[in-house]
């Protein structure tokens, strides 16, 4: 039963082989979906291109439904999967800063690596920016530590936070995603086209 490396069904040395293969697939899918283009990515914020929204929501929908289905079939144990800890204020403040960075820079870390892969200079410069930003964070960690470590809520999932069934959340999330697809197509028809 999965996950298979934590359960030692295959040797741990395979982990790095899978890391590269999974990375290649990840990079290929993002680039082929247009994520190496900053002007395509930010289209979601101006209404002229909703590829980010569609790819992101379709991927999470497929993943969340698929993982829970595999759990139901006993092929994978959901309890063994890594759930990142929730530090509420850190997630909100960090997300806010990332949102400003997204609009200023036109990439996020994964997509900027894609842009590096096809030779975009703006992608390379964005990645250098990432490096500097992480350096500044680390050097000022003493000062940021309270924000980083306070408001810890545990390794919780949304169904635990709201105290409802995970299946209800998945169902509502799917409905919201479908609504977002529908609305985004309506918006795009009304917004002036942008050529990039």
């Amino acid at each position, binding site marked *: 039963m999965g996950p298979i490396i934590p359960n030692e069904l295959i040797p741990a040395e395979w982990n790095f082989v899978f890391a590269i293969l999974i990375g290649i697939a990840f990079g290929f899918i993002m680039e082929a979906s247009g994520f190496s283009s900053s002007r395509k990515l930010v289209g979601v914020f101006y209404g002229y291109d909703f590829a980010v929204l569609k790819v992101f929501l*379709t991927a999470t929908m497929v993943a969340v439904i698929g993982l829970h289905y595999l759990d139901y079939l006993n092929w994978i144990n959901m309890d063994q999967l890594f759930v*990142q800890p929730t530090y509420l204020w850190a997630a909100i403040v960090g997300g806010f800063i990332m949102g400003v960075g997204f609009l200023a820079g036109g990439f996020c870390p994964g997509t900027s690596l894609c842009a590096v892969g096809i030779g975009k200079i703006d992608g390379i410069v964005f990645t250098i920016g990432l490096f500097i930003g992480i350096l500044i964070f680390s050097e000022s960690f003493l000062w940021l530590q309270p924000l980083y470590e306070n408001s810890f809520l545990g*390794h919780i999932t949304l169904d635990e936070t709201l105290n409802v069934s995970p299946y209800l959340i998945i169902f509502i999330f799917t409905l919201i995603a479908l609504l977002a697809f529908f609305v985004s197509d309506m918006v795009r028809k009304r917004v002036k*086209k942008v050529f990039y």
Partner: protein
Amino acid sequence: MEQTNQKNRHVYWNPYFGGFLLGLLIIFTFYITGRGLGASGAVKSGVVTVVNKVSPEHTENNAYYKKFIDGENSPMNNWLVFEALGVIMGAFLSGAVTGRIKLKTQHSPKITAKRRLFFALIGGLLFGFGAQIARGCTSGAALSGISVLATAGFVSMIAIFGTGYLVAYFFRKNWI
């Protein structure tokens, strides 16, 4: 070339197809490793490695760097670093088969390349900084987090994209 650009024909995949494949990849990644995808963590490993090379005492005295230093084991010997190298290779492959590989700065015709690069640097800086506070970026925190229904994943996604819509107005000149 100009002509194709005027029609936005970049022959990118249908976003639902790309999203479906990405979803399958996330399932596969969790099935194999028990964890999701990531990106900013790899750059963090790079930062820790460089700082540790320059001054090992400094990393030893900093509570944040110290988390990622593990004796003789290099911080580059990390799952996310190999994955990130794969991402660059995968993007290169996709760009190679579609003829999109070209050393250039992409920017709106209304702004100069210099302005684009200045904002790319500032944007990257902010994104890297924010991703450390939130313990992950759009891939690690939002995409992988939501796949296991992590509360932090939903909060990060809403914060990133919500802020994006809030500040889009101020950056409009750069994009449209």
